[in-house]
C-alpha cells in the first residue's frame, strides 16, 4: 500500500487509465483508507470536466458562414 505522496504521483495516470493492474490496486487500496486522497482524486476528476466545459466556446455563427463561403466547389 502506498502513502499519500505516492498516491499523488498516481493521480494523473490513474485517471488517464494508463496504470498497470498492480498500480491500480495499489492506488485503490490507499484510496479506500484515505479520505483526503479520495477527495483530491474526485476533485481532479471534476476539475477536468469543468476545464473542458469552461474552455469550450461555441463557434461564432458569422465564422461558420464565412467558412462556407470559402468553398470552391460551389
Amino acid at each position, binding site marked *: 500500500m502506498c502513502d499519500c505522496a505516492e498516491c*499523488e*504521483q498516481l*493521480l*494523473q495516470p490513474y485517471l488517464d487509465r*494508463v496504470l498497470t493492474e498492480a498500480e491500480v490496486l495499489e492506488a485503490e487500496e490507499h484510496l479506500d483508507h484515505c479520505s483526503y486522497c*479520495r*477527495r*483530491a482524486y*474526485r*476533485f*481532479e476528476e*471534476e*476539475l*477536468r470536466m*469543468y*476545464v*473542458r*466545459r*469552461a*474552455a*469550450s*466556446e*461555441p*463557434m*461564432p455563427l458569422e*465564422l*461558420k458562414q*464565412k*467558412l*462556407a463561403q*470559402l*468553398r*470552391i*466547389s460551389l
Partner: protein
Amino acid sequence: MSETTPETDARRIAREARDRVRFEEEALELADQVYRVARHMVKTREEAEDLVQETYARAFRSWQQFRPGTNLRAWLLRILTNLNIDRGRKLQRTPDSQSLEAGDYYLFERLEDAGGEITEEERVDERLSQDSIVEALSAVPHDFRDVIVLVDIGDFSYAEAAQILDIPVGTVMSRLHRGRRILKKQLAEEAVG
C-alpha cells in the same frame, strides 16, 4: 497505353467534383471542433477566427492531398498548427516551466486552506469561476497548452495529438502531465493568490 475517351474524362471530372463537394461538407461539419481547439491555441477570439479561416482556405485548396479514409479532423488540425507556427509563434519564448509547476494536489490543498474542506459532493464551480479557467489556460506556455487543448478539450487521442504536433507520443504524455500541473498552479494563483 489506354486512350482516354471524352466520356471517361467527363466521368472523372464529375467524380472529382462530387468528391470535392463531399470533402468540403465533411470538413465544414468539423468546424466547431476545429474552432474549439483554435480558440485556446491563440490569445484572442479574433486570432482564432482568422486562424480557422486560413485553415479552411488552405484545406479547400489542397483537398486532394487528403487521403480519404484517414482522419480528417487531425488533418485539419495539422494544417492549423502549421499555420499557427508560421504566424511567428515560434518567436515566443517558453518560460522555464519548472518554476511554474507544483504537485498534483497543490490546487486542491490551496483551495482547502483558503475555503475549507472540499467535500465529495461539492461542485468545482463553487470555488473556481469559468473565467479563471480560461485565464489560467492562456497563461500556460504554448508547448504545454497545445497538448492540453487537443487532448483534454478537443478529445484527440495521444496518437492524434502526436501526429498533429509532429512530436513523439511519449512527449505528448509528458507535456500533458506537466501542462496540467502548470494549469493547476496558475489556477491556484488566480483563485487564492
